Structures are given as structure tokens and as C-alpha cells.
């Protein structure tokens, strides 16, 4: 079916300013992604999957300029011993990065792979993204596969001693970054990936993750505090037998954020946990869109999302669990909760379950509400001032999501930051 004219026009307008990176083993994936994109078109406001989030600023030809945030504190994860890999406005910065050699992992630049005829990443690049395009199209991810010129191919072969930390620095007010990572966790291997920083004025990032049998990947992300930045991110994860994927995202500030997680459990006894916490103040729109497909026996999935919203901030959660025929003994859990600190803020949630197997346990819940008045009075009656009491209760609300992070050093690091950020306001 041909695209409606406004959609076609918007798509071509966006593509006009982009150049397809040429040659190498990823070229076919790019051409195919471009064809996929042209067939579905970029998202428009009337698309069902975008009914809570306006895609306009994410698809327009150039980025809306965003002033660089003057950070007055050390970056997140600074105290953690990690392998630091730095990107500035979406471009790898070797001078600012550590030596990429680390035992148990092989790291290459996508930009380098482009020049090679053969590379393992070819079997994943664009492949998982393409699988994730049904039943719901994700055009911004196809755009990314086609045009992203930089990113990393990370192959985890053992158990690296340090987390691999991707640091996204925003320097140019008009930067419009496309970044694409491919991660392969080999059988029985285990690693932790950290991400932090705003990356650019506008950031489109795709991460494709293939976890082989018995592999484990931990992912902890803190999206930067630059308020004017915009981001659309996708993580496509495929899990093999007895593999584990645990992902947590903290978002504080950012005028527009859409984080999509597309998880496919393809091997028996696999575990996928996807969690997030956000604090939105004022002109802030934050969208978590999650799609988990159970395609094997006895798998567990868990979604935990908490949003604190004030001064007119908007939070969105679209979360789906799809249990395919035969995926018996599925254990699926999903909770999304918003704490609205005033009457101007809003939480929009669309929890979905679609189940085609008869021996499964799936549950979902979604709540939004104000701060607990009884708790607030109790704290105040003990002498804790109202503001401090509100912050304490807010942190307690978020802490339940942060608890999803397995490594307590990381969760405590983030919780300590949150304490400071909350008390300071934006």
C-alpha cells in the first residue's frame, strides 16, 4: 500500500539531508532498512503507536537546537571502575576513551566495520531491528539502521572484570546524532554495559543485543540532565536458552524522550527484566514503550516503571506482553506507576497482554496518584519539613524501581544522585 502523502512527504524531507554510508559488509542491511523505512514511513501524530507522544520533533529534518547543560557535578558512574568509551555528539572520540582492549570482550567501531567485507556483526546489524518491526512498526529504528555511521560492535566472549561504559557527551547545540550498537553475548558469557549522558541535541540510538544460551547482560543507563535534548532510543534484544537480560534506565530532565525496548525470548528458561525511573519537571515528555514476546517455555519477564512528574510534566507507558502459542509456563509481570506531584502533570498508560498459551501467569498493574497524605503528615509530625518529607517519599517511590538493578554499587550511586537532584529542583 502506498503511503499517504503527508507521511511520504515527511519521510522524504527527513531523508533528503542524510547520506547512506557506502560499502562494506553492512551495506545490504542499510539498503534493506531504507526500503523498510520507505514502506512504513516515519511516524505521524495519528499513528496508534504514537498517540501519547508527538513524533514531530523527532522526525523533522534537523534537530531543534539545544543549549549544552552546564553540569556542576561529576558525571554519573564516575566513581565506578569501568572501561570508558566516549562519544561526542554521536561520534567516537578515541582520545577521550580508554584503550578498547579488555579481557573477555572484543570491541570494534561500526565505522571501521563498514570498510570490511566480513564481520560477525553482520549477522545481527539490522537483523534484530527488522524482527522487531512486526507486529508494530518502529520507523525511527529503521532510519537509524540505514544511516547510523558510528557505534560499537561489542562481542562478549568471557566475563570482563569491568563494566563497559558508554559516555555520550553533548557539545554542539545543533548536533543530530545517529548511533547504532551491536552486542553479542556468547554462550555463558556475562557483561555489564553502562550508558550515560545526553549525547546530542537530538539523539537517535539503536542497540541490537543477541544473548546466546546461558549468557547474561546487565544494562544500566542514566540519560543526561540536559533539559532541552531530545532522544528516541530502541533496544532490540533476543534471548537464547537460560540467558538473562536486565536493563534499567534513569531519566532526569530532557524535553522529549522515547525509549523503546523490544525483547524476544526465543530460548527456554530465559529471563528478561526491563525497568525504569524518571523524574520530570515542567516541559518534559517521557515515553517508555516496551514490547516483550514470549516465544519459548518457562521464561520470565518483568517490567517495572516509575515516574515522578511535576509542573506539567507528562509520562507515558506503553507496555505489552505477547505470549505466543506454545510458550507455556510463561511468567510475565508488568507494573507502571506515576507519582503526580501536582494537578498539572499527567500520566498516560497503555498496559497490554496478548496471550495464546493456556498455562501462563501474567499480571499487570498501572497506578497514578498524589503523594500519600498520611505518610506526609506522619513525617511532618516528627519534625521533617514538608519539602524534605515530600522528597523522602518521592525517593522511596523511585527506590522500588532502582532496586531492580542487581549491582548495588550502581543503584546506590544513582540513588545518591537522585537525592541531590530532587532537593535542588531543575
Amino acid at each position, binding site marked *: 500500500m502506498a503511503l499517504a502523502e503527508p507521511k511520504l512527504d515527511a519521510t522524504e524531507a527527513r531523508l533528503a539531508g542524510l547520506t547512506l554510508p557506502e560499502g562494506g559488509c553492512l551495506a545490504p542491511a542499510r539498503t534493506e532498512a531504507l526500503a523498510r523505512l520507505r514502506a512504513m514511513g516515519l511516524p505521524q501524530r495519528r499513528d496508534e503507536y504514537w498517540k501519547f507522544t508527538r513524533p514531530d520533533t523527532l522526525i523533522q529534518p534537523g534537530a531543534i537546537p539545544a543549549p549544552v547543560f552546564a553540569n556542576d557535578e561529576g558525571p554519573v558512574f564516575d566513581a565506578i571502575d569501568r572501561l570508558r568509551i566516549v562519544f561526542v555528539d554521536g561520534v567516537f572520540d578515541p582520545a577521550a576513551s580508554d584503550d578498547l582492549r579488555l579481557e573477555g570482550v572484543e570491541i570494534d567501531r561500526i565505522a571501521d566495520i563498514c570498510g570490511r567485507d566480513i564481520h560477525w556483526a553482520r549477522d545481527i546489524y539490522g537483523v534484530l531491528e527488522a524482527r522487531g518491526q512486526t507486529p508494530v512498526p518502529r520507523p525511527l529504528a529503521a532510519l537509524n539502521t540505514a544511516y547510523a555511521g558510528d557505534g560499537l560492535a561489542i562481542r562478549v566472549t568471557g566475563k570482563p572484570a569491568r563494566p563497559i561504559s558508554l559516555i555520550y557527551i553533548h557539545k554542539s547545540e545543533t548536533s543530530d546524532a545517529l548511533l547504532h550498537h551491536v552486542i553479542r553475548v556468547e554462550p555463558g558469557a556475562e557483561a555489564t554495559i553502562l550508558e550515560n549522558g545526553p549525547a546530542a541535541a537530538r539523539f537517535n540510538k539503536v542497540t541490537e543485543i543477541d544473548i546466546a544460551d546461558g549468557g547474561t547482560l546487565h544494562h544500566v543507563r542514566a540519560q543526561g540532565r540536559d533539559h532541552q535534548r531530545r532522544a528516541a532510543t530502541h533496544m532490540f534484544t533476543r534471548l537464547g536458552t537460560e540467558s538473562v537480560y536486565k536493563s534499567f534506565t534513569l531519566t532526569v530532565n530532557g524535553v522529549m524522550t522515547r525509549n523503546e525496548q523490544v525483547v524476544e525470548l526465543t530460548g527456554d528458561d530465559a529471563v528478561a527484566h526491563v525497568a525504569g525511573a524518571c523524574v520530570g519537571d515542567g516541559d518534559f515528555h517521557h515515553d517508555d514503550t516496551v514490547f516483550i514476546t514470549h516465544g519459548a517455555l518457562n521464561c520470565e519477564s518483568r517490567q517495572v516503571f516509575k515516574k515522578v512528574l511535576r509542573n506539567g510534566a507528562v509520562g507515558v507507558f506503553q507496555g505489552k506482553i505477547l505470549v505466543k502459542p506454545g510458550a507455556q509456563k510463561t511468567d510475565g509481570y508488568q507494573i507502571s506507576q506515576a507519582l503526580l506531584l501536582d494537578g498539572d502533570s499527567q500520566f498516560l498508560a497503555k498496559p497490554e497482554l496478548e496471550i495464546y498459551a493456556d498455562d501462563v501467569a501474567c499480571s499487570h498493574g498501572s497506578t497514578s496518584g498524589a503523594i500519600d497524605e498520611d505518610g506526609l503528615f506522619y*513525617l511532618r509530625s*516528627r*519534625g*521533617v*519539613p514538608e519539602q524534605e518529607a515530600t522528597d523522602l*517519599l518521592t525517593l*522511596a517511590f523511585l527506590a*522500588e524501581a532502582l532496586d531492580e538493578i542487581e549491582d548495588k554499587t550502581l543503584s546506590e550511586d544513582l540513588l545518591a544522585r537522585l537525592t541531590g537532584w530532587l532537593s535542588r529542583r531543575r
Partner: protein
Amino acid sequence: MLEIKNLHVKLEEENKQILKGVDLTVEPGKVHAIMGPNGSGKSTLSYVLAGRGGYEVTEGSVTLDGVDLLDMEPEARAAAGLFLAFQYPVEIPGVGNMTFLRTAVNAQRKARGEEEISAADFLKLVRERAKALKIDADMLKRPVNVGFSGGEKKRNEILQMAMLEPKMCILDETDSGLDVDAMKLVADGVNALRSEGRGFLVITHYQRLLDHIKPDVVHIMAAGRIIKTGGPELALEVETNGYADILNEVA
């Protein structure tokens, strides 16, 4: 110390008068008890004194050591030395009991212009006072009141009181939901805090708590007023004859 004069209180949301002229003075070092049937306004009185929202004072005054309490926020009343042990202590998921206690102690110190207590000193103090109330390390670590039994919640209230060292303690039906042993433990905790400079207002339905916390003065409250005041013997009278006789006598 605590002086309540002609206190009239109605609900903010509806036109319902709860307190209709309460007069009461608690002197330093004294324990006053308020007894009364359900719906007489006892708990409302405790909430109004602590500054809970939802009530409107239409007439009268409340002062603590001469300072007007009614104009103050709940946290300021606490810093001024008022403490309410809740009938139903609130569960606060996600906030550790220890963090809560330390935050409260330091917030009050800060409000009074005093130095914050050091982590080491605080820990020592909590351990010592928790031990007396048979509160173990696990209860201190758990989120405030979450999963606590009725008795544990009430002991936790007394621990907060012991840590905050208020001038004026109000106990709202602290005996409710307690078995005999738990009541004894709570009463011992309260008695340990009795001192010359500290006043107590003990609100209860039953006389039995007053066997353990011996009051100096007993008030009977009914229909939003204090209708009779006497010595400890008044509590015994209630225990034997119920409230009916006193209510009839006054009517």
C-alpha cells in the same frame, strides 16, 4: 505547659462540629488521661494538636509554653516539643526506619538551631533505646512500620518518642491492638520517659493502660467537651460502671 482554651473544631469538608469547647491544662511532669466513649472527639483533639489537615479551628486557642501552636506547621510543632504517638502508625514503604529516625532527629535539631547529631552518636543512642523496647536491628532496618505487627508499630512509636525527647507527649489509644505483654512493654517505655519537665496526655478507652501508666489527672470527654475531671479513681469508676453513669450524671 500545654494549655487548651475553649477549643472548637469542625471538619473542613462538612459542617460538622467535633470539639465544642475543650479546656485543658497539662502541667510539666504530670500525666493527664482522657477517657471517653467512641466518637467523643478524643482522636480529633490529638490530630488538631499535632496539626493534621482537614480540621478547622473555629474558636479557642492552644499554647505550648505560652507559644501559639495553632498557627504552626506540624513540623514546627514537633520542633517546639510536641509529639503525637499515633493510634494507627503510618507505613512508609521505601524509607528505612533508621533513616527516618535520623532525618527526624536532625530536622528538629536544625529547626532549633542545634548541631546535627553525628552518625556514631546517633547509632549508639538508637541501639540503647531500641534495646529497652525490645526492638531488634532488623526492625530498625526495615521500612517504617511496613510489615510490623500491631505491637511492633506501637513500640516503634515509643522509640521515636524516646529519640525525639519531646516536652509534651500525646498518646492516642496507644493500648489499642496490644496484648498484655506488649502493653506492659509500651507502658515501661513511657514511664522511663516520665520526668519533671515533661507532660503527658494519654488518650484511651480503657482503664487497663492506666494501671501501667499511672495518671495524675483523669478527664472524661463526651460529645466534644470535657465533662468531668478527677483523680485516678475516676478511671476505676469508668472501668466498673462504664460511661453511662457519668454521662447521665452530667446531663
